């Protein structure tokens, strides 16, 4: 019998699996659960995109693509990014097509982190950043974003965390799970804090097309001098409802992208070719489909915010992504207790805020990737649960 402790990599074994795994597992085994738990669009991929993939298969386009991705797709990404957010990237040297945004985040971190480098991670945020930094040999440094500041990254908090070892700051906006967005002025303040440093900004913009209240997404790469230090991460999953296609991209200075490309070339080879053909159509022809989905999300968002507030859970209006992040502090329960009891008594599944960092305590994440009828039923049940708690 092997001693597997001797076999396994200690950096990996020391990484904690998500603490709420058990809760997820219970929820998955129950029947008739009404869930607001999934961070994945409920719309099928627009037909034009699916059809483009089918046509590419019919034409026999089933081989590898260039390591960086199809030239035609990189050109479309360049045009799309410029059209939507402003900055211009050279398709041949500043854009890499990846397996989802996830691969891009991982490869970007590994291409910049030396052992012991610190990476600042604002929380509550998506669960992958801390383990990915650790796996790259870096040290995660957490900033706790505050509800009073609309869960934005504050320049003052950032200043306190910057040390000579700071290599990068992750910018996860629009935010999963808080729905927070950053505006130009917010980034200008951050620019001042780092202007005389070599700190890199890793901007995860996967929800960039889902912003509301008339506010357009601002990429830090579009703010003054920040482009030189920004690695943009984006992808097709959320905007085009293409989660299963596993396709993302990263744009940035060619000095960095060329190194990320090396990692990608050796570990991945290239992103799925069929998905790449589909993505060309997504970027070129699907503005109307994306706008229709965004409009539907907006309707659900408003109904959900009102719903939570009307049953007594304070819920700020999120301005991006597709989540609300209501406070459950008035119940006196921890968020994990709240979610577990809600699941057991009313069969409603939502995600405890602590899944996204310790500072998520007191909050829960509810996704509005569900029909309005579904959302209404879930909120009614949560309302009943609250009434029973107060008895």
């Amino acid at each position, binding site marked *: 019998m092997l001693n597997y402790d001797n076999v396994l990599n200690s950096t990996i074994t020391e990484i904690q699996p*998500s603490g*709420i795994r058990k*809760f*997820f597992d219970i*929820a*998955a085994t*129950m029947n008739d*659960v009404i*869930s607001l*738990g*999934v*961070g*994945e669009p*409920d719309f*099928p991929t627009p037909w034009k995109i699916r059809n483009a993939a089918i046509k590419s298969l019919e034409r026999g386009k089933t081989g590898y693509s260039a390591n960086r991705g199809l030239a035609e797709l990189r050109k479309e990404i360049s045009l799309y990014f410029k059209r939507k957010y402003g900055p211009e990237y050279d398709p041949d040297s500043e854009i890499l097509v990846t397996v989802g945004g996830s691969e891009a985040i991982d490869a970007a971190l590994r291409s910049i982190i030396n052992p012991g480098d610190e990476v600042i991670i604002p929380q509550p945020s*998506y*669960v*992958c950043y801390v383990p990915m930094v650790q796996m790259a040999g870096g040290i995660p440094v957490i900033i706790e974003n505050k509800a009073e500041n609309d869960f934005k990254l504050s320049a003052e908090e950032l200043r306190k965390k910057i040390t000579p070892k700071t290599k990068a700051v992750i910018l996860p906006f629009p935010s*999963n799970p808080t729905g927070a967005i950053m505006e130009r002025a917010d980034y200008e303040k951050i620019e001042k804090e780092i202007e005389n440093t070599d700190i890199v900004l890793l901007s995860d913009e996967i929800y960039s097309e889902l912003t509301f209240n008339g506010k357009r997404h601002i990429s830090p790469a579009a703010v003054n001098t920040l482009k030189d230090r920004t690695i943009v991460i984006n992808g097709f999953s959320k905007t085009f409802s293409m989660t299963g296609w596993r396709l993302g991209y990263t744009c940035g200075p060619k000095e960095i992208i060329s190194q990320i490309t090396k990692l990608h070339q050796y570990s991945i080879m290239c992103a799925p070719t069929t998905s790449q053909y589909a993505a060309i159509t997504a970027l070129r022809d699907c503005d109307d489909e994306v706008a229709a989905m965004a*409009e*539907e999300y*907006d*309707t659900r968002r*408003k*109904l959900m915010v*009102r719903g939570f507030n009307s049953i007594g859970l304070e819920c700020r209006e999120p301005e991006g992504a597709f989540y609300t992040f209501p406070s459950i502090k008035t119940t006196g329960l921890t968020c994990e207790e709240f979610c577990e009891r809600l699941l057991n008594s009313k069969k409603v*599944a*939502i*995600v405890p805020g602590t*899944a*996204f960092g310790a500072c998520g305590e007191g909050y829960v994440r509810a996704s509005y990737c569900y029909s*309005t009828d579904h959302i209404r039923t879930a909120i009614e049940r949560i309302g009943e649960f609250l009434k029973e708690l107060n008895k």
Partner: protein
Amino acid sequence: MDIRILKLLAKDARMSIQDLSTVTGLDEDTVISEITEMKNEGLIRGFRTVIDWEKLDEFYVSAVVDIKVTPKPGLGFEDVAKKISKYHEVESVYLLSGDSDLCVIVKCKTFQDVSRFVAKELATIESVTSTKTQFVMRRYKELDVDLEVTNPDERGVVSSC
């Protein structure tokens, strides 16, 4: 007039006044008066349900009837189109460009009822020169709703992504 109300109702006619108010940001009284005005102006003409009748054993039979018309001097196609619209059996009437002049959707209980209606009523209207009746054999999409797709939620219950 707030076009957002129309767009929301076009997608879901059951939206409550309260929901419309929440989504548009207008207060409830304004939503009510907007809708009343749009009804009065004939902009909103009804609220219907999209039903897949084929799920029932007994559903109605529909036919698309293409009609050619010799327009009357001074009246064009108006006169005959309006006359056809008055029949209970007629669901929709459109003026077309191209080979035929009017497209009429007819709905009856049986095939025989449709045939009888076309032969006895539509074909005998003065200035109708020909009719071509095409029975609907199957419906795939109705009012933006893809009837083939049922979309069971296969996403699982929770995920942190």
